[in-house]
């Protein structure tokens, strides 16, 4: 329970970011995509963080960017779970040939740097909201599968699993009812970590120009466009950069607090 503070800190950050995303229209002083003639203004009372090269209010875009970030992060983690959990469960519970097939595939994926892989696939399929979620999920499923498989391997040896078999349960039923629920706690933690990973990878891709297509407000893209004007208005890059860092940290702390 020494890790309690980590969980609390992480959870508070996540909740805060989610709250900002939820009430973005109320919180944001301007329309995030509305340009004006006041381009590249430095921070002032009317534009707290200044405006970008198209005259859009940076604070408003930062607030709306939370939505994009969360959708991509959570969506990608969800895809990773959807692919990884069944594969991991199958390998860990049934072992044998299925497992012999699964393990090298997982190892292969885990050995490849996620960002590079995501980059290559994105170049092939083209950047879009949907593609980004799918690509990131696809890159991250092996980590999820590996965790689930390892846990399933442990749980399947428990006497209550043998007892469930002895009671006449089908494999599918035993997995659903006895194996999966015992793994879920760790999976939840892994999801949080996956969200943080997806968020940062998505930001990196955006920074490289392969992320969310404009004009959607997204932090990675904002860091990229602010990069050219660092001397003029550092907040243009630093604010979305900090937002990304804090969000990633929140999910990561929350996830890693659960052993």
């Amino acid at each position, binding site marked *: 329970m020494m890790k309690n503070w980590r969980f609390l800190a992480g959870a508070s950050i996540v909740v805060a970011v989610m709250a900002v995303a939820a009430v973005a229209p109320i919180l944001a002083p301007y329309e995030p995509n509305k340009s004006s003639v006041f381009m590249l203004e430095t921070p002032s009372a009317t534009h707290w963080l200044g405006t970008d090269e198209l005259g859009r209010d940076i604070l408003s875009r930062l607030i709306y960017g939370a939505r994009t970030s969360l959708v991509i992060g959570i969506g990608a983690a969800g895809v990773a779970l959807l692919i990884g959990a069944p594969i991991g469960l199958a390998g860990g519970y049934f072992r044998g040939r299925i497992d012999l097939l699964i393990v090298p595939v997982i190892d292969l994926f885990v050995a490849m740097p996620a960002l590079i892989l995501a980059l290559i696939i994105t170049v092939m399929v083209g950047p879009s909201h949907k593609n980004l979620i799918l690509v990131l999920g696809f890159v991250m499923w092996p980590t999820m599968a590996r965790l689930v498989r390892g846990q399933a391997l442990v749980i399947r040896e428990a006497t209550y699993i043998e007892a469930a078999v002895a*009671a*006449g349960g089908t494999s599918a039923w035993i997995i659903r009812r006895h194996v999966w629920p*015992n793994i879920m706690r760790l999976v939840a933690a892994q999801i949080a970590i996956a969200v943080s990973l997806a968020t940062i990878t998505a930001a990196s891709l955006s920074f490289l120009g392969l992320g969310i297509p404009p004009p959607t407000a997204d932090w990675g893209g904002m860091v990229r466009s602010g990069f050219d004007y660092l001397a003029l208005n550092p907040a243009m890059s630093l604010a979305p950069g900090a937002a990304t860092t804090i969000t990633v940290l929140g999910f990561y702390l929350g996830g890693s607090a659960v052993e």
Partner: protein
Amino acid sequence: MQQATPDPPLLDVEALTVCYRARAGLVHAVSDVSFQLGQGETLAIVGESGSGKSTTGLAIMGLLPTDRRTIVHGAIRLTSKSGSVNDVLRLADRERRRVRGNDIAMIFQDPMSSLNPIYSIGSQIVEAVEQHRRVARREAIADALRLLGQLGVPSPDRILASYPHQLSGGMRQRVMIAIALSCRPRALIADEPTTALDVTIQAQILALLKRVQRETAMAVVFITHNLSVVAEVADRIVVMYAGRIVEAGPVREVFKSPRMPYTRSLLRSLPRLGHVPRSGEPLEAIPGNVPSPLALPSGCTFHPRCPHQVAGVCDGLMPGLERCAPNRLVRCARWREID
């Protein structure tokens, strides 16, 4: 063709052999084990660790691994509730699942880990009931309450709402028994059900099993290494050594006049109540260890440890299982001579 024979035994194990292919060679876990069990009867399978008694129990439940490394021969015929006789070893998965829990149930040694820690006791009993019987949830809960009541559990409703970690070992084993009995099986395999419990709780659980058995005419296979437990619960006893049956018969007779030297040594190694040992008198122990199943001795597998062994007789051929009394079997080349 229908023959006018008496009812077939409830459980008929015939020439059961279980081998594992290991890297070092073929491991014979169980060799040529046969026994029958009638309704309401209790059979104790006794042996040291590694004697094949638990493997026999798992085979009856159809719980042995089904990979290529496990070789199973023989037949395990079980008369189901519907009256049909099935060979458990040759059932399709679907039918095997129908038999498990329904016709034959099992309780395990360790009640600590045989319950899933994340579900309440109630939901685990209800789930066992729902596995084989189409009943409404409320009915299943009522059933669970009645079962726990029958098993002498105080305030069953409170137990139903508890989680495994909140219960004592004895209580958990009662819950396991309730789960095993929930579908009213015709036979129960009890694999060392009291080994992990305190002696006083042990006695309670044994008495409980006996009572339930009397009420339901259920057959019980009691797997144990504890001879005092055998004396308490079983009608017949099968003694196993290194995967084979070495002696079988009614408990009273075997206990009174064991024929196989191994059984004799086992019985003599029990501390006896009322027998005051002279100071310094050691408790008798069987010298040596159970042989490794990879390197079984030639001839009688017990002969290296046997006080009656005779070179040229005991180390030559494996003696067969002989009938030494109307309902008793013994595997010893010299059983006629030693007394």
